[in-house]
């Protein structure tokens, strides 16, 4: 968390909401009594638009909501889902908390490290995969599991995970490999 932040520099590319997000932003302003309360929803819009939050994007959100840039930066650094660096096309978030560990998430970690050659917090050079270990995702009944591409992949086994990764690599839809969904 902290070491990444220290290397953060401006990209030089200005940021602004596109038309769709501007409309969403305007609606958000009507839903809360203070502009500050819109900080998290606005950051989500910005991150979804660009893929991650640049220095310019954070300044933009701060300015639109009349907040100091540093307070917005502090919020971004507090919440693990806000990313200040681009994630992979397939952003593997493997749960590592209690039940998932009991049910074999370390095998899955080994699989990822072996197949993709990256460890937690790293990204493949071609930008296809990023991998991070996350805490309890609220899916202990279908452990071990991961979150990737904005959805959960549950009841994972080494075999299923390998097939999902292969599908991603080959440009196929990995959902087809999501058997034993439970």
């Amino acid at each position: 968390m902290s070491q990444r932040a220290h290397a953060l520099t401006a990209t030089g590319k200005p940021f602004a909401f596109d038309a769709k997000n501007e409309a969403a932003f305007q609606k958000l302003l009507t839903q809360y009594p203070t502009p500050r309360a819109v900080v998290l929803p606005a950051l989500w819009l910005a991150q979804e638009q660009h893929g991650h939050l640049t220095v310019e994007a954070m300044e933009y959100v701060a300015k639109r909501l009349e907040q100091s840039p540093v307070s917005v930066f502090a919020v971004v650094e507090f919440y693990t889902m806000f990313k200040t660096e681009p994630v992979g096309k397939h952003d593997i978030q493997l749960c590592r908390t209690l039940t998932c560990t009991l049910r074999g998430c370390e095998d899955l970690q080994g699989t990822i490290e072996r197949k993709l050659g990256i460890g937690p917090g790293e990204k493949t050079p071609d930008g296809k995969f990023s991998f991070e270990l996350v805490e309890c995702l609220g899916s202990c009944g279908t452990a071990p599991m991961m979150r990737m591409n904005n959805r959960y992949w549950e009841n994972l086994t080494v075999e299923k995970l390998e097939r999902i990764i292969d599908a991603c690599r080959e440009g196929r839809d990995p959902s087809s490999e999501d058997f034993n969904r439970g």
Partner: protein
Amino acid sequence: MSVNITINGRKIVAAEGALVIDVCRDNGIEIPHFCYHPGLGPDGNCRMCQVDFAGPRGNKLGISCKTTVAEGMEVLTDSDAAKRARASVEEMLLLNHPLDCPICDKAGECSLQNYYMEHDLQPGRQDFTRFRKEKAKDIGPTLILDQERCVLCDRCVRFLRDVAQDEQLYIAGRGHEAFITTFPGQEVTSPYSLNTVDLCPVGALTSKDFRFNSATWFLKNTNSVCTTCARGCSMEIQSKKDQVYRMRPRLNADVNGYWACDEGRVNYQFVNHDRIITPFIRRGVDTIECSVPEAIAEMRTLMGFKPAGQIDKPSTRRVVVLASATCTLEEMFLLKRLARESLNAQILVARHVPDGADDHLLRRADKHPNARGAEMLGLRVVDLQRGGVNEIQDMLGGDGVLLTVGFNTHVEAIAPLWSSAGKVIALSGCRSALTEAADLVFPGRTFAEKDGIVVNFEGHAQQLRPAIETRAESEWQIIDALIASLTGALPHPTIAHVRKAIMDGVMSLGGVDLLKLGLTGARTGQTVAS
């Protein structure tokens, strides 16, 4: 409304709504704390101020900074649980705290150090490699940040946001990895940034101005007043031998609260070098050092008086006495007497008011501490930037004698004057373009060496006290000596005598006793002397 409580069994009457930590302090019990500060209010995160509260179901720990007194409350500050809570918080803070004491500016005035000695004293049980963060990080023109030392008390954040109104620091991240930071690429530029160094209970925020200059325990403290603007913040001058090392604000509820601005704080460098200790006379390109009596004789000559020893008529030359609005009340009082009674001269008090408004907190556009004092003495104050210079030039008429007193800094504002004068006499403590142009220079004392009274823009009178010694005579004694040589009047034996004379002569002090101003001064009346 008052409330009856007990603290450690002792019956105490407290004001309704008071905080337990304040009531304890007012009754001689210092509760240790990091995040609380009376100028910022409580935060409740450091947990160091925990005390025990007796209750029907046994004692319960609570934070005294956020607990208000209630009727019948029983506070136990030294129960075993309270002591353990404090020692434990101290231990927790030391776990990841770097062992920087030997090189840390804060050593000697560090809460972490002090509380360890007062409340902990256990051997360390820390057994892992400390978590690393950024050290010696330049975060702006005035500050260096060490994230490892930070105890995350949030004081700097709250100060900049709530008091300085420049939210430029924040705690980012989470857990033990949280760190104080600016926005990437931005700096702390608030003109009040150095207050965060005072507020920081450890050495996380240090002042570039002071960094590594001195161990704090070698510094001598003197209670005095800042002279950088018309606010006159109560200050503590810290010095060693004949050098000023640091200035910090003192609490003064009537003037500056707990704070001071950066500009005033670091405006002491001029005290430490390029000083004039001995009078000198300029003959052509040469300067000849002389004694004060010799210099007074020269002054009489320049002004067209006969040599000393003879009581004279007023001078044959036109004299303009120009006092800086930095001069003290005593200096101005004596200058007025000199000008009006001895020299029959014009006397003006000049001040430097650059463009720019007073700000929302402390800083005043008037960059002098005593313009109000001048008004109270019945002197005319002119703004150099708004026609003051022209007016004085007219008075000098190309060949008058200009006697300047108290211009140590910002002398460029009066530069046109010494070209319009026939002769220039300067009472100045510091070498400057003025002293390079003057025909006769008397030494002067800076605020750090002076005993004197200044009155701020609200009429609040405070006493400067000397922090360092100097061989230079004080200005008031020089002026007094000059009056004596011209009129035969006896000089005042002490400055207290001058103060008494002021009190006898000046109506608008509103009953303030200049001999008893104390540490925080007193508010004078609003009327101006006729």
